[in-house]
């Protein structure tokens, strides 16, 4: 009741100064450029590192105290969730597929973020950003660990999650989030901070976490909701770090502005392409919907991002130009993505299905411009075919975009009946792109993106079969070999939800939980 707040001898500002800048020193027998070798080559000019200040003024001692409190709250709930068979309280078993998507697509990125911030923090000569990066690096490993702990309970009951990290490094669509983060951590420290700290954490994070977390809350998944909120409680600090980074770099030297603008343009687009997975999760995978992808984009990017870029205009920074194309895609993105996963359900670690009548009505009301005209007829046809026993599984591998690694499924901006193809010839090879933005990113750094590990190319080159596979033997089934390499079991981890073990088991277990059998 009477929680005592110890009287502090120093105020917050002085305490922050003493515990960050006060702990730094100037090296005397090593040259600064030898200690901080990555700080100059990106072209960013910093004149005074002390101008950096964390607006929360959080020091390490306070950090440990509050993080420990967050962990205590989280684990109390995880225990209660597991003790009460909380997994049986979710709306229906289709929901669990969002959890599969999360653990194999997002949680491994938390771990890479941990490494990225540790690396960036080490690279900066200023104690302010170094301490802030240290905290975020610790936050990110906490996110990875708490997500693995929370979701391990689902793994006891449902398929497709048993080897999430192995899959993250191999499964075709998981190369989209994986290559996004690999792209960021192989950039210089300033670009890393703009890509993840600013573009991803500040501009796009609300579109990733808020839909997943409130989706979990809407669908009775207390476990995911709780780790989501626990991770999210660090997010306000990450967003603040991201915004401070940008302001600090821009204030240090006017020559930094065009470099930063290029990074913002690039990383907003890269991040948005990754969010394709979130868009389809929101519109198709949550049995009980929270808001549509289009609504979320309007609230969190157009409104909120609009305010942000208006504020940054005083530095000469403008709204990334890709925002225009994104606005044109918002009526189509989730539908085009779900159609693709419906097609490729034989090769993924989660199940797909066709929306039912109520869900189709919801989609029509949220997407009056596009759904009834373009996507409903397609779904009705597929549903009819499935009813006749012809559920379609596409076994032809798609062409991938060299930059974002998404199959070339997107349509021309402004014409949703025509697939968008772009290509570039570079050193005698042809490279393909899903959009003008991915093409421009490649053209600016071709030597980086020619190295992309594209799952489809790798399969065709024979690099995605278990060791010792002989693809020349009679009757060789490439898909079966690829699934073995992914460590996915055909007929259990993949295919349509309707025929899944998950669906059958959930119905049985829920029956046992509510009836006396």
């Amino acid at each position: 009741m009477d929680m005592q707040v110890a009287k502090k001898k120093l105020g917050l500002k002085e305490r922050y100064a003493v515990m960050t800048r006060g702990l730094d020193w100037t090296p005397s027998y090593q040259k600064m450029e030898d200690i901080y070798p990555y700080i100059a080559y990106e072209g960013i000019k910093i004149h005074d590192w002390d101008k950096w200040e964390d607006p929360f003024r959080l020091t390490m001692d306070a950090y440990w105290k509050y993080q420990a409190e967050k962990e205590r709250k989280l684990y109390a709930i995880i225990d209660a969730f597991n003790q009460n068979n909380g997994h049986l309280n979710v709306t229906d078993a289709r929901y669990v597929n969002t959890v599969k998507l999360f653990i194999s697509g997002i949680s491994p990125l938390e771990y890479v973020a941990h490494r990225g911030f540790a690396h960036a923090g080490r690279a900066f000569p200023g104690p302010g950003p170094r301490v802030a990066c240290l905290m975020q690096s610790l936050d990110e490993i906490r996110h990875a660990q708490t997500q693995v702990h929370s979701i391990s309970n689902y793994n006891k009951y449902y398929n497709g999650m048993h080897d999430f990290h192995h899959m993250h490094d191999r499964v075709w669509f998981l190369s989209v989030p994986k290559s996004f983060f690999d792209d960021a951590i192989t950039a210089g420290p300033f670009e890393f901070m703009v890509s993840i700290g600013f573009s991803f954490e500040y501009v796009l994070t609300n579109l990733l976490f808020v839909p997943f977390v409130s989706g979990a809350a809407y669908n009775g998944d207390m476990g995911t909701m709780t780790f989501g909120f626990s991770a999210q409680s660090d997010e306000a600090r990450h967003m603040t770090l991201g915004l401070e980074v940008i302001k600090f770099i821009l204030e240090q030297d006017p020559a930094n502005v065009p470099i930063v603008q290029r990074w913002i343009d690039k990383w907003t687009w890269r991040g948005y392409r990754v969010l394709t997975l979130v868009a389809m999760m929101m519109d198709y995978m949550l049995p009980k919907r929270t808001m549509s992808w289009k609504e979320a984009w309007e609230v969190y990017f157009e409104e909120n991002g609009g305010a942000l870029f208006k504020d940054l205009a005083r530095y000469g920074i403008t709204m990334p130009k890709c925002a225009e194309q994104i606005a044109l895609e918002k009526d189509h993105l989730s539908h085009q993505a779900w159609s693709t996963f419906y097609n490729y359900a034989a090769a993924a670690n989660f199940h797909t299905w066709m929306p039912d009548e109520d869900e189709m009505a919801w989609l029509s009301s949220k997407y009056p411009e596009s759904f009834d005209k373009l996507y409903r007829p397609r779904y009705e046809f597929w549903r009819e075919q499935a009813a006749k026993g012809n559920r379609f599984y596409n076994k032809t591998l798609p062409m991938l975009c060299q930059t974002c690694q998404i199959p070339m499924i997107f349509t021309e901006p402004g014409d949703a009946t025509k697939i968008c193809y772009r290509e570039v010839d570079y050193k005698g090879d042809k490279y393909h792109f899903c959009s003008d933005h991915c093409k421009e990113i490649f053209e600016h750094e071709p030597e980086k993106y020619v190295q992309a590990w594209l799952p489809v190319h790798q399969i065709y080159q024979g690099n995605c079969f278990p060791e010792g596979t002989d693809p020349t033997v009679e009757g060789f089934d490439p898909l079966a070999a690829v699934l073995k390499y992914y460590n996915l079991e055909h007929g259990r981890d993949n295919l349509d939800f309707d025929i899944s073990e998950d669906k059958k088991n959930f119905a049985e277990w829920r029956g046992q939980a509510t009836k006396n059998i």
Partner: protein
Amino acid sequence: MSTVFLALQTNEDTRPIIEAILQDNPSAVVDEQPAMVKINADGRLVVRRETIEELIGRDYDLQELQVNMITMSGNLDQTDDEITLFWKS
């Protein structure tokens, strides 16, 4: 003026904090979402330690808010007495 916002988890810790924010910010509007309370305000939003202390009847350290924050929008500044979210334009 653009909107700033602060989103907090819905729980017993945040109830008096939300009340304090509404007292101190006439333009603040509460948007209740599943398990989350989002408070929007016009251009500027202040969380004052003293108001919270009056409501909970004990000393309060604004850094405790770290535990219950979900997301925010705007530039931030924190002192011993206040957290301020603001847009400059």
